[in-house]
């Protein structure tokens, strides 16, 4: 379980997250939505310590990660995978090498083992034939599927997605969402920052609506989308739906 407890984050004088508390249960899919600049990415990045929180606690499986030293930060990163809007595949490595690098380097998997797992994961995201392709030879949707497979190669217990389809051409959004949906079905615990309201409605167990660094609403999707409580959420939904 991930538990965020009265979290604050400031960049200089700019308070970007203020008093954020939330829980993500094992197996749940949480969709985080809200206007641009509301702090969604920053929240996600705090959860795997790509940003250091200014105040408050974050617990992952009951361990407070805000007090960890460098070595244990790596343990958390193994547990919590991340998928970025712009993929960030390693351009000088082939798809399969993108997948095997961290398991070999960080988890000390044997080359054979890492390779076997990578082949299987590429199959799972429908890209068996692209194993030896460099990222520059892949379409946006394919890159993002490789990026998801790369995160999965570390056997994470939690996956964070930061707008995984926002940089994609419309016709490629579905192939990525399909992969994410099948992950959700298999019980992966996921926090997804997204503008895909259809995905949130269909897959999420819980929708978190953020604005100006605060969580304004937490509700199951059918409730949130049919009866948003705050004016901000109503305004936002009018704009995006």
């Amino acid at each position, binding site marked *: 379980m991930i538990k965020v407890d009265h979290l604050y984050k400031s960049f200089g004088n700019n308070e970007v997250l203020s008093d954020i508390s939330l829980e993500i249960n094992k197996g749940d899919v949480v969709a985080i939505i809200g206007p641009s600049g509301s702090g969604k990415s920053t929240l996600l990045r705090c959860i795997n310590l*790509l940003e250091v929180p200014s105040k408050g606690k974050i617990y992952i499986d009951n361990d407070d990660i805000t007090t960890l030293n460098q070595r244990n930060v*790596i343990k958390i*990163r*193994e547990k919590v995978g*991340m998928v970025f809007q712009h993929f*960030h595949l*390693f351009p000088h490595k082939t798809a399969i090498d993108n997948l095997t690098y961290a398991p070999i380097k960080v988890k000390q998997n044997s080359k054979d083992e890492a390779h076997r797992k990578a082949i299987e994961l590429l199959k799972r995201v429908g890209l068996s034939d692209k194993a030896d392709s*460099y990222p*520059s030879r892949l379409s946006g949707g394919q890159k993002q599927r490789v990026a998801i497979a790369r*995160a999965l190669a570390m056997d994470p217990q939690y996956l964070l997605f930061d707008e995984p389809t926002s940089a994609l051409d419309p016709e490629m959004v579905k192939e990525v969402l399909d992969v994410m949906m099948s992950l959700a079905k298999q019980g992966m615990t996921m926090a997804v920052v997204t503008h895909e309201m259809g995905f949130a409605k269909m897959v999420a167990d819980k929708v978190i609506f953020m604005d100006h660094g605060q969580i304004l609403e937490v509700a199951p999707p059918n409730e949130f989308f049919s009866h948003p409580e705050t004016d901000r959420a109503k305004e936002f939904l009018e704009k995006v739906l």
Partner: protein
Amino acid sequence: MGIFSGFSLIASSIPYIINGVWTTLEIALVSAIIGFVLGVILSLFKIGNIKILAWMSDFYTSIFRGTPLILQLTLVYFATPQLIGYDISAFLAAIITFGFNSGAYMSEIIRSGINAVDKGQFEAAGALGVPYWSMMKDIILPQAIKKILPAMMNEFITLTKESAIVSTIGVLDLMRRAQVVAAENSLYFPPLIVSFAIYYVLVMILTILGRLFERRMSRSD
């Protein structure tokens, strides 16, 4: 005396001059390797968050950039025996000076390459739990170096040409050998123009090799 008779007079010495190419290349190559290794280390210090190392690296760089190379060379060659009692050879003085000097320039080039790597690469590696040094070695530096290959090739060519000043401490490189032949025959134009031509051909060859290498390296794009 005509130019051509001048050439025929030194004809037997031309191979001697040409063979200086190996000394010149050896100095350039060894210095480039020292410079590269130093440059990588210094650039990592510069971008790292240990303030004292960053400061020392900047200071190191400013020293080598802020003084004449020929003075650095002279100092290393003539002052080392007096300071530490070690009778340094001209060749060693040459590669130390050029290597350390090149390290200063190389560190700036490599730093600019690292800064040009997409920040997302650091984040992706970080998010996968890759330790800092592995990330630098396996993810960041290969991409950085690819971006700065032309600048590094330039640095190597500069090194090759500038190495001519080792002639001032008596290393028998291309330049020095031309001077030796000139002095022996009291004849300047033919031997100097021979070394002139060899430097030029050498630099052209290096330029072409550099382009081929770059093309090879850019295959993954």
